[in-house]
């Protein structure tokens, strides 16, 4: 039982990182931009959130006052989100305005941002004194604060459902809200049209370029929150250049396909992916070799889902028809 709960909790934590990443990516892909830079954008969110909180905590320490929890959280979120938006804007500028190939741009963005983040992660360590790890203890503690009473008094519910910081619930709320927004509002409808057929959207008077920029930039911001959560909760406010963010970032990209471009399916999908990523840890007697097989599970599941989805050929579960394609009005 303990084992199960522990696996569940670990799964939710990883699932939340993946969920942020995929929710943002769904928004971007609904507008027709296949942003493979998501793992990179999550890196950017993680490192910039860390930089923001690091400087705030250092300033507090220099002034001799205790950091205020709410300010810690806000600075971190704003820095992370803004970094994600910049990443999304960069991607949009290259692909929408300059019409560069989306796949190449996205992969480049991921490679670039990984290096960028690890470089600044290293620099922070040096700033922090050169030896050992940096740590933004106050911010990380604020991120990991649980709900009072609910997280302690409800027995197994407390341990499985209310065991986490606010970001876990924010991720679910965002996914539900975004799914509703895309389906039920005129802006959502217009965005879907842009992703399905930009020429049609254009002829209908929808500003295609604006929609693509906004969806990708805001999507980038949401994805970046996944990086923030990873650093502040899972890493407890430290930096480690082990590539963990990137691994989860690719899972987020896979999850978009798994969820059939529907944020609400992304929620349970994310937790499933999270659980599957930790499964190897909780199964007794695995060798190094066989544990790698278990780590492969989320990807294997995605492949299976892709096969099933393409066999069923439901028109409503297909990717946006113009996904990954550049659009230029006067193209002949």
């Amino acid at each position: 039982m303990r084992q199960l709960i522990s696996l569940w909790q670990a799964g939710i934590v990883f699932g939340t990182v993946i969920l942020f990443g995929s929710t943002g990516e769904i928004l971007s892909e609904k507008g027709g931009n296949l942003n493979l830079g998501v793992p990179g954008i999550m890196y950017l969110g993680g490192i910039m959130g860390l930089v923001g909180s690091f400087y705030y905590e250092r300033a507090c320490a220099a002034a001799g006052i205790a950091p205020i929890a709410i300010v810690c959280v806000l600075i971190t979120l704003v820095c992370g989100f803004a970094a994600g938006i910049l990443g999304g804007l960069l991607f949009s500028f290259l692909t929408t305005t300059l019409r560069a190939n989306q796949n190449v741009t996205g992969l480049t963005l991921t490679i670039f941002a990984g290096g960028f983040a690890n470089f600044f992660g290293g620099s922070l360590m040096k700033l922090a004194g050169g030896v050992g790890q940096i740590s933004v203890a106050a911010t990380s503690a604020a991120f990991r604060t649980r709900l009072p009473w609910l997280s302690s008094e409800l027995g197994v519910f407390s341990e499985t459902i209310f065991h986490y910081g606010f970001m876990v619930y924010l991720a679910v709320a965002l996914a539900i809200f975004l799914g509703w927004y895309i389906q039920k509002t005129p802006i959502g409808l217009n965005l879907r049209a842009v992703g399905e057929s930009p020429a049609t959207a254009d002829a209908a008077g929808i500003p295609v370029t604006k929609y693509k920029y906004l969806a990708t930039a805001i999507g980038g911001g949401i994805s970046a929150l996944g990086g923030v959560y990873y650093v502040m909760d899972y890493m407890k406010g430290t930096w480690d250049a082990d590539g963990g963010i990137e691994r989860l970032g690719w899972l987020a990209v896979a999850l978009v396909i798994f969820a059939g471009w529907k944020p609400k399916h992304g929620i349970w999908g994310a937790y499933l992916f999270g659980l599957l990523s930790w499964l190897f840890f909780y199964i007794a007697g695995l060798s190094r070799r066989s544990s790698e097989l278990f780590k492969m599970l989320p990807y294997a599941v995605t492949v299976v889902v892709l096969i099933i989805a393409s066999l069923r050929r439901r028109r409503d579960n297909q990717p946006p028809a113009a996904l990954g394609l550049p659009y230029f009005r006067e193209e002949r």
Partner: protein
Amino acid sequence: MEALELHAEREHPPAVFMHGITKRFGSLVANDAIDLTIERGEILSLLGENGSGKTTLMNMLSGIYAQDGGEIYIHGKKARIRSPKDAFTYGIGMIHQHFKLVPVLSAAENIVLGLREGGLLNLKTVRARVREICDRYGFVVEPDKKVYDMSVSEKQTLEIVKVLYRGADILILDEPTAVLTPQETDKLFEVMRNLKADGKSVVIITHKLHEVLAISDRVVVLRRGLFVGEVPTGETTAQALTDMMVGQAVSLQIARTEPENMTERLAVSNLSVRDSDGVLRLDDVSFTAYGGEILGIAGISGSGQKELLEAVAGLQRALPGGSIIYTAPGKEPTELVGLSPRDIRKLGVALAFVPEDRLGMGLVASMDLPDNMMLKSYNNGFIFTLRKPPRHLAARVVQEFQVKTPSLKTPIRRLSGGNIQKVLVGREIAGEPALLMTAYAVRGLDIHTSYAIYNILSEQKQKGAAVIYVGEDLDVLLELCDRILVLCAGKVSGIRDARNIKKEEVGLLMTHLGEEKTDEA
């Protein structure tokens, strides 16, 4: 300024006045200082050959392109149309040849697309207004039907309702009848008359003369980007319009000779084909094609024409029980089912299929002419490809078909649609096949080239080839072919002698399965 004075004395300025409109694509002048007036409550035909600049001109009115020179006045006021959205605000709505609809959305969702950004989607009021518009002009639209479930004619109706919903009083229809049956065309014309009676201006872009004469009040003719003239429809004839359109008197005659030395070339029996979705596309099709005749295939688009030709060419798998026997001149009959496309090609079977988007099949857009020619001969030569023959072939096709291209090295996608098609058809005919199958060979081509192609097909027939011609224009099918096979929903609804059948009868066969009686001699 002169323009404003021109209409100053009129009580009602015209709905649209386009003055000195010029549009260039690179070095090509698509529209050269064109003047055009559209009155209220009239149906105006914009007539011209392919590439004459009709669609380009209207695309500027609807905000798809921006003009390089000239002014547009809407109801006497100078208008700045920079985007489709601007066009809506001036009450201009265009129904494009390739429908601008999102397949995964419903009719109602497509209608409100881009209309507003605030609040929530309220499809209930949309449905009510759609119903109101439908009742007024005599349409039928199901608001909740997904576009991917709609027929071509339903999609077109939806497009018209969409622009009316947006309050358009100037409607532009770009070749609206290209995909319709004669019956559906009549229904469309009925709607257009209703619109006109309601005081709306309707522009129909077309190159079909009989439609111009049937529906419009006035005709404006363009040729090679230039304004040629305008006439009231009542005061002109098909021949006069053709001369204006083409610039010289042409005789619209297809040299149809009596079939000679008919030998059985292709015997198809009980052929059925399923597509990748498992839908039955061809259902128990049987027919015979002879050397020395042209067999026309008519049918609403998507009735199985493509699958039939592809099955013969080996690109579609025939279901068990079907048989396709091909007899090359002076050879033993061969069963084609089960052979690879390459083997079938080697036997002398050629397929020139011109898809709706022209580039979808048979040509590679970013390759130049010789390379595209080489697609059919890439495996000649030892280790290295032979580049010379395709280059000669390309040069010959360019010359014989008068393909307009800057050079042989130009990527195909830079050519205009008509020229791309000439390359495709030219390549297939050049092989002097014993069985030549063409589908939509003249789709979108100008009259000159179309007739050139008809006569080339006739020549092939006289040389003894069996020609199978899938076409859209029934008038041409009746004039060109010796026999006509009509497909309806994947079945043969009749095979008739083209010399003794009326267009209306073919139209009926296209929509209803006729009694399975064939008059094969």
